């Protein structure tokens, strides 16, 4: 069965482990850049995906939409069937490990794929299927801010990147145009720390494409929701004031700003939005399906299948036919779980990767035969946690002892309320605007920055609305008699549901060596591969931002006229935020309990740096220890900032692709 991949005389230019956005971006960039080189080169690339193949045509994709509609728990991974051969984490499995008094783990929480060692559970998931987690990302495409790249120098926390914002800027532009397709207007991007002028911040050096360097996104902003406008009007002029422990006051003028997203909108002249895979008519615009997570039914939202589809259509894995111009070849193989990176490295020395061993399963969970495939260069692009477990299991690329360490996420604090007016909740993409005021500032020496995301789907996230709202109103759980039904029920729901709103306060997490992915031979999956064993906590630096976020929320809700605390099932306008103890998401700081959830931003397990003693990869994401190995993805990010990491990951992957293209052998034509 493996013959087509591991034919003895097949030596690939590049083998890429993983079939998500990082893999697709590296492959596409290498091919485009190499074809444009002198002489042109045409690499042969193999992409190995551990999970199932997902769908490459619209009618097959519809079956995933239907699976979501029929799923009882509509969690991010609900539409994508799990396999036990390439298991994936599920947010339903998040449990709290039991810790001993000495702070060690007494009973790990291991009921899902992750083995959670605590003290806090790692609250995020990812998808193992072709297309990766872009199948169920929200699509937010914020660039990181200049200060995010020099956290150590400027604020004395974390580390500096080996790259600056200016270094990465041209790659951000390419990520926005060539891979994802981002919808935004420059003038909306009012972030702190950019000198006050978005146009200047986005000024491009690509004057061929942008006359006078005046940058614009490939598509217009996705329209802000009615809720965004409502909040903007109600909060106009509000300045949130927050004090640090020394009594110093910081002011944050509140401005609701439209968020850049990888979601199709009105194109700029010359840009063609990319629609659904195999049916490009579909998904030319966001239609407002209100289900970006877990699945965009029309694929108006970018997912990596789009780039992968382009690759297999343009560069099929067969010899060019007569008359066909020389071109690259791309093979994508699913259900191939890479189990080992084979190499010659010994401790403290450099070495070479000599192959990757993989298991191609057909009967899910049954033992699968192992094969090896070889290439000139190798790319690991399997997600930060998967990259780390694979490297640890292979005893590879870890002279620095940093593999698996510095695991980060955006710990997310939810606050929610019931507005006095119908604000049109449950319509539109998950979020269309945010409040960027807290993304940078001098206070970052004491506490982390945070991003404020306005949610368009009512209390769907915090209170399982509209389900629990219906349960509350119909009532009768104890009495067996419906309290509200008929027209009264219909009318009351119409007064409550569209007035619901929530905000996510997404905290930057700093890198800590003790937040780490490890492996343990006691914890293996069905094919005998290591499950991720995760140690996770929030530093005092992160926790110190919790009271600030909570206080900022309080001041905002006050301004919106819903400052009064309230509780279900009353459903009077008010602040319904509650963080009770004994929840897996409970975190305390300064005697106060908060709920902190995962944002799905899995970052930092193979950090980049200039110094091989303290980092895993260089700024090209090339392994310090194994120079023919690239370890790409969010795992390479030394710090996280307050941006959702996918755009930055994509920019980094383009930079890696350029670099690899420059190293390709010339003989392949």
């Amino acid at each position, binding site marked *: 069965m493996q013959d087509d991949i591991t034919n003895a005389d097949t030596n690939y230019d590049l083998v890429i482990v993983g079939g998500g956005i990082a893999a697709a971006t590296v492959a596409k960039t290498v091919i485009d850049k190499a074809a444009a080189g002198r002489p042109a080169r045409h690499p042969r690339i193999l992409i190995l995906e551990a999970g199932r193949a997902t769908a490459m045509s619209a009618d097959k994709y519809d079956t995933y939409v239907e699976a979501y*509609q029929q799923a009882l728990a509509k969690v991010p991974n609900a539409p994508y069937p799990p396999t036990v051969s390439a298991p994936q984490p599920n947010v339903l499995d998040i449990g709290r490990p039991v810790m001993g008094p000495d702070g060690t783990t007494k009973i790990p929480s291991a009921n899902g794929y992750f083995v959670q060692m605590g003290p806090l559970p790692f609250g995020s998931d990812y998808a193992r299927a072709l297309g990766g987690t872009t199948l169920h990302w929200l699509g937010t495409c914020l660039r990181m801010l200049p200060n995010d790249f020099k956290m150590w120098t400027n604020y004395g926390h974390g580390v500096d990147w080996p790259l600056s914002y200016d270094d990465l800027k041209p790659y951000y532009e390419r990520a926005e145009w060539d891979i994802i397709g981002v919808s935004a207007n420059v003038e909306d991007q009012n972030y702190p720390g950019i000198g006050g002028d978005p146009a200047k911040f986005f000024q491009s050096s690509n004057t061929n494409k942008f006359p006078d360097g005046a940058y614009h996104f490939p598509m217009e902003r996705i329209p802000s929701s*009615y809720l965004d406008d409502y909040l903007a009007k109600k909060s106009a002029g509000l300045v949130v004031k927050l004090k640090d422990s020394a009594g110093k006051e910081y002011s944050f003028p509140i401005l609701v700003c439209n968020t850049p997203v990888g979601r199709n909108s009105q194109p700029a002249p010359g840009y063609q939005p990319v629609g659904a895979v195999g049916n490009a008519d579909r998904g030319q615009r966001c239609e*407002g399906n*209100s289900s970006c997570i877990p699945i965009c039914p029309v694929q108006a939202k970018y997912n990596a299948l789009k780039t992968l589809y382009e690759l297999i259509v343009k560069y099929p894995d067969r010899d060019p036919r007569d008359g066909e111009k020389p071109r690259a070849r791309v093979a994508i193989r699913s259900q191939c779980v890479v189990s080992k990176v084979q190499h010659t490295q010994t401790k403290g020395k450099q070495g070479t990767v000599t192959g990757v061993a993989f298991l191609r399963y057909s009967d899910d969970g049954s033992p699968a035969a192992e094969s090896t495939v070889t290439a000139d260069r190798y790319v690991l692009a399997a997600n930060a946690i998967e990259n780390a477990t694979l490297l640890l299991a292979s005893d590879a690329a870890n002279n620095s002892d940093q593999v698996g360490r510095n695991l980060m996420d955006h710990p997310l604090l939810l606050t929610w309320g019931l507005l006095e007016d119908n604000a049109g909740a449950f319509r539109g993409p998950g979020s269309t605007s945010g409040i960027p005021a807290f993304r940078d500032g001098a206070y970052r020496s004491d506490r982390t920055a945070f991003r404020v995301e306005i949610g368009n789907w009512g209390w769907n996230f915090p209170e399982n609305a509209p389900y629990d709202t*219906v349960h509350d109103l119909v009532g009768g759980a104890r009495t*067996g008699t419906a309290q509200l039904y*008929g027209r009264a029920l219909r009318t009351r729901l119409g007064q409550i549901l569209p007035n619901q709103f929530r905000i996510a306060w997404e905290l930057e997490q700093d890198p800590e060596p003790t937040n780490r992915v490890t492996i343990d031979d006691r914890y293996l999956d069905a094919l005998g591969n290591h499950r991720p064993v995760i140690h996770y906590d929030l530093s005092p630096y992160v926790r110190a931002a919790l009271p600030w976020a909570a206080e900022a929320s309080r001041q905002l809700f006050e301004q919106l006229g819903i400052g009064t605390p309230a509780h279900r099932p009353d459903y009077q306008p008010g602040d319904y935020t509650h963080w009770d103890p004994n929840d897996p998401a409970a975190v305390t700081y300064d005697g106060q309990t908060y709920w902190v959830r995962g944002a799905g931003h899995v970052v930092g397990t193979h950090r980049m740096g200039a110094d091989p003693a303290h980092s895993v990869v260089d700024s090209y994401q090339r392994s310090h220890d194994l120079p023919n190995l690239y370890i790409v993805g969010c795992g390479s990010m030394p710090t996280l900032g307050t941006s959702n990491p996918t755009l930055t990951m994509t920019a980094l992957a383009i930079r890696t692709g350029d670099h690899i293209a420059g190293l390709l052998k010339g003989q392949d034509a």
Partner: protein
Amino acid sequence: MSTVDTPTRPDPLAVFTELSVALTGFDRVELAGTGLIEQHYDTVLRLIGEREAGHLFQAAADALDADRGDPEGTALRTQVVENKRYGPVIINLIKLWYLGSWYPLPGSYADVNGSTADDVEHVVSAQAYREGLVWIAAGAHPMGAKAPGFGSWAEPPTIVVL
């Protein structure tokens, strides 16, 4: 000449429809437009058994008859909704229409009536989810279906009421 009269056969589906109209606050065309009347009828029969459904529908038919001319629906409330025997099923039927899901009947109900194999929490069908009435009541659309079109979310919300 036959002495056996020719009775009018009851139409349980029609009773179910009228009961559903009263319980949901949606008229018969709105309910028919979901394409789910028969599916939900079948679900109730499957989940509580035909015999019990026969009792429920007769009680509902009597109450609905008694309520003609009473916009308050007093008979339906006192004889069916507040009836200990039917109350839990009524709650489930409301949720079936509004959410497209079936929720397990309470233990006290099962103690008397027994339980069926399917009496666990489940989404009855993808269509039942898509056509859940809660989304119309909210002035919205089901998440992941019936998209309202590019930029519609920027417009002021409207809610249709009868």
